[in-house]
């Protein structure tokens, strides 16, 4: 009897391609969300200054692609949760798969999606500038361009990519834990309550903010990258380990 002995990387590659096909619709959703975010961003925030000395009025309109990046992060979080649902899991196991290959291909998919999402969310800045110019009429546009500050764009790309991937993995890990045992729903609810409530001795939002600051206020690129790699790999390893004995297609 001839038995086929595939390598893990071979199957992971095939599953990655399968997952791209299977989740094609989520990219269409992403495009729609980004278009919506662009529309919201075009209006911008207005601030006007009146100079009484020469009676001139200066209006500063700030356009930003922050909405696009935040929406991309929310999208990643939701998609991360969806990737570990029973349904998605059994779809993978309709073909050749082990739990490890399933996780690895999911990770590749999240990596790829974060890259696409990060790049488009950052580059939507140019679209916002263009539409903003059309919408607000003639104005002086100031922005750092790729020509005079190439590092800035690169930094934006890297951070957007990192944040989106982190949100992907947070969603993925939460959902993996919940799949393993529904008691985690209660645990996450408790964490949520603790993080949002405050009284004399407990200040939840402050602690939550400290975690965000741990990533957000990092000034050194090297440390930032290190923090993210550790966090992302840590979450991934946790999700893989806790679901490695889970029963599928049940």
């Amino acid at each position, binding site marked *: *009897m*001839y*038995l*086929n*002995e*595939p390598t*893990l990387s071979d*199957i992971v590659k*095939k599953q990655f*391609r*399968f997952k791209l*096909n*299977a*989740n*094609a*619709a989520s990219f269409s959703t992403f495009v729609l969300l980004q278009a919506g975010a662009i529309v919201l961003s075009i209006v911008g925030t207005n601030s006007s200054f009146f100079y009484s000395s020469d009676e001139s009025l200066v209006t500063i309109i700030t356009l930003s692609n922050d909405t696009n990046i935040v929406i991309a992060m929310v999208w990643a979080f939701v998609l991360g949760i969806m990737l570990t649902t029973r*349904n998605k899991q*059994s*779809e993978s*196991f*309709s*073909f*050749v*798969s*082990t*739990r*490890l*290959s399933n996780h690895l291909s999911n990770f590749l998919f999240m990596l790829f999606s974060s890259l696409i999402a990060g790049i488009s969310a950052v580059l939507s800045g140019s679209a916002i500038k263009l539409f903003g110019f059309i919408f607000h009429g003639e104005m002086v546009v100031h922005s750092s361009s790729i020509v005079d500050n190439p590092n800035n764009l690169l930094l934006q790309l890297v951070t957007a990519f990192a944040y989106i991937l982190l949100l992907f993995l947070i969603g993925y890990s939460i959902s993996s834990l919940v799949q393993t045992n529904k008691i985690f729903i209660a645990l996450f609810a408790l964490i949520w309550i603790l993080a949002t409530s405050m009284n004399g001795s407990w200040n939840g939002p402050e602690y939550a903010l400290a975690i965000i600051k741990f990533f957000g206020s990092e000034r050194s690129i090297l440390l930032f990258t290190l923090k993210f790699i550790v966090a992302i790999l840590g979450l991934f390893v946790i999700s893989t380990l806790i679901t*490695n*004995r889970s*029963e*599928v*297609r*049940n």
Partner: protein
Amino acid sequence: MTVVEFINVTKSYRTHTVLKEINFTIKQGVLTGIIGRNGVGKTTLMKLIVGFIEETSGKVEVFSEKPFNNLKVSANSILVDDGMNFPYPMTVTDVLKECNRFYVNWDAKLAERLVNYFGFHPDARHSQLSKGKKSTLNAIIGIAARCPLTIFDEPTTGMDSSVRKDFYRALLKDYLAHPRTILLSSHHIEEIEDLLEDVLLVHEGIAHFHGSITELQEMFITLTGKKEKLALHTNGKTVFSTNNLGPYSEWIIQNKCTQKELEQMKLDGIAIASVSANDAYIALTDRPKGGIDDVFE
């Protein structure tokens, strides 16, 4: 060569135990029917073989390896059941394309011909197919994948009778052309008995019987005659089923009568006949006393 081996395998879920120290082996290239009543653990057994679930105790070996989390077992086996799930947007053509990439022995031409024959629209979405059509497509995938270990769990659920016949015929033809180990479960033993080489009868968590259909049939005989005469001749023997047909009764008993006893029966006007595979299966799995009629008495 042994393809599947179960040694004292127990599988428990939180509330109950399904398989209780079950032992059996499946040889390479044999088409085996897995039969048993509802809820005896046929599906559990099949899921253990392909590594979807893990045994509670004992040892499961497929291709001499533990199947749980095993890439080699996954690549060389396929389980066709109604839990086969494909992503919502995928069409029939998309699903077949994916199969082609995952299964090395995939016969794309055969799959295409079967899909055409059974009247699928190539752009129909798998998720929107009717129950019978879904089962048909899953069965086509099972046949065309040509996995060394192919498992069908109730593959004909929802299929109409003509599609069912066609499927069994297609399976048999492909099996003869490309011999491989096939496990097939069904409630309708009469539908698959011509197909099977062996049957594995799962009952009360163990392998109650494992052998050929003929062996299964030869375990019992049917006696038809007057009730009193039957009672007289079967005294001390286990009667598995009784059926009253007007003045005559039809009893199924274990085939352990001596030649002399049989001749005596014949002299008393009792007709002796062999049992169908289905009757033998029911006799083996029924409680010796009490049927549905007793519930209403």
